[in-house]
């Protein structure tokens, strides 16, 4: 039985306005468990409470009610934070420091000795490709360079758990690829990763489990293979050179008809309808370019759950 890396029980957080008035709750009884060695994707639309949850776990914000713990230590206990590496969304650094000095500074805050800090720098600078920029000031760094440095800072204390807030936000495809690879590497190193993201395609590629937060509550959680039906949602038939009258006949049984680069795409809800349409196209002068069954993606599931959750509340 693996250890529980993160546990929250009935977590509530309500911020106050500048005038001291209570705002609607950001977290409203969030209960969540993340097991050790898991990669857990924390999903929710903007304002759902993802960043607040992460801030509570990292000791930046205090809950009004409920409990939060990391490997059994309360979020108020600094022993909890010694086991965590945190990467905020759009990480901020002291602009006058170089990556080497930055890592050294945070290493000191982790209580590492000079030898430990040097060893960590050697490892992380190679892993995150920081060697060439080791002695350049952070001022003027691109988003991708900052994100690499942010990962290095999060990993400075060799934590058992990494908490990443939107680690792929604002990155170009190469940057996202780097983050994905890094997360897979962390999995291999038996680290626990808890991250929030809007980029669901990437989440689907790296996560073991996901949780969907709706209005400050955990609406759904589970392993991806359990949540996604993986049944065929629809079958897309892309055609070319099909006469318009045939398209008009087929559109009566199609769910949707739209133009694509190769020709016209007809979406059917069942294989039988798609097969029947293909036969009809072959019997005439048209051609079938492709016939693709489409299974449910995490994005489809997320949108469905979001609508369910908002409907229920």
């Amino acid at each position, binding site marked *: 039985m693996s250890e529980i890396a993160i546990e929250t029980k009935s977590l509530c957080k309500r911020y106050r306005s500048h005038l001291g008035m209570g705002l609607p709750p950001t977290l409203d009884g969030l209960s969540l468990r993340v097991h050790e060695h898991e990669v857990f994707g924390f999903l929710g639309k903007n304002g759902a409470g993802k960043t607040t949850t992460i801030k509570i776990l990292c000791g930046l914000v205090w809950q009004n009610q409920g409990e939060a713990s990391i490997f059994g230590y309360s979020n108020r206990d600094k022993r909890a934070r010694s086991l965590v590496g945190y990467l905020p969304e759009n990480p901020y650094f002291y602009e006058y420091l170089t990556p080497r000095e930055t890592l050294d500074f945070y290493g000191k805050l*982790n209580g590492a000795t000079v030898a430990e800090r040097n060893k960590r720098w050697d490892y992380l600078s190679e892993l995150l490709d920081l060697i060439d920029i080791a002695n350049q000031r952070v001022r003027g760094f691109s988003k991708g360079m900052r994100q690499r440095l942010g990962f290095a800072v999060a990993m400075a204390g060799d934590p058992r758990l990494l908490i990443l807030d939107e680690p792929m936000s604002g990155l170009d495809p190469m940057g996202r690829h780097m983050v994905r690879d890094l997360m897979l590497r962390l999995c291999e190193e038996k680290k626990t990763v808890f991250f929030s993201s809007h980029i669901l395609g990437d989440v689907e590629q790296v996560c073991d489990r996901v949780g969907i937060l709706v209005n400050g509550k955990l609406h759904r959680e589970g392993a991806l293979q359990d949540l996604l039906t993986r049944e065929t949602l629809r079958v897309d038939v892309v055609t070319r050179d099909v006469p318009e009258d045939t398209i008009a006949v087929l559109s009566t049984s199609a769910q949707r008809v739209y133009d694509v680069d190769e020709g016209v795409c007809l979406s059917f809800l069942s294989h039988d309808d798609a097969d029947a349409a293909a036969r009809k196209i072959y019997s005439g002068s048209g051609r079938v370019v492709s016939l693709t069954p489409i299974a449910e993606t995490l994005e489809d599931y997320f949108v469905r759950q979001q609508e369910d959750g908002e409907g229920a509340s």
Partner: protein
Amino acid sequence: MRIRAIAANTYREAIRDKVLYLLLVFGIISIVSSRILGYMSIGDELKIITDISLASISIFGALIAVLVGTNLVYKEIDKRTIYMIISRPIDRYEIILGKYLGLITLLAVTTLVMGIISALYIVLMGGSLGVIYFEAVLLIYWKLLLVTAFSVLLSSLTSPVLGAIIVLSAYVFGHGTGILIDIPVDMQGTYMESLLAAIYFVLPNLSNFDIWKEYANGIEISHTYVVWNMVYGALYTALLLYLATLVFENKDV
């Protein structure tokens, strides 16, 4: 080690602040230009130079403490650099202490620079220094420790502009608390006298640290008086830092 790391980083950040150099230059200009006012006072030239030189160290030191100090915690939160500090295995009081120590180290350097320039200038103008000069500069620095602690407290509570206004107001008021016990005869023996006396004892009396006035006028000051004022300042500073820690401990960032 954590407090030292934060202090070193705070010092490193503060010496990049352009306001610091502006105030330091103005402080030095003020010391050097004290001779102009000295010319105007017949026979008291050296007294005026000494007076203005030490007052410049006090005022410009206080401005540095307020303008840099009220930004200290606020800027970390505003620029979000605090996120990756608090999420480490560190107590929040260590952050406050580290920030405070970084700034008072910087103030030690600026006070030393202005103190040396002032001393050289006084000697150049034909004056003599003696131990009391160094005690006067030390007490100015001690006052800055207190002002810095109040600035750090305000920095944990509010914006730098509002914080600076409050600390500067308190600074001015703190130099005039003597009027609270210097009351008219018809108020003596009333509740008002007790209330004003209570306020007098609660608020720090910053003029206690200004022995440079006595020094400029050639009045003797005992070493015991200096030591007691240092104890007095240290207690106030400790209290203000404790309050700053309490505020920051429960703050959402």
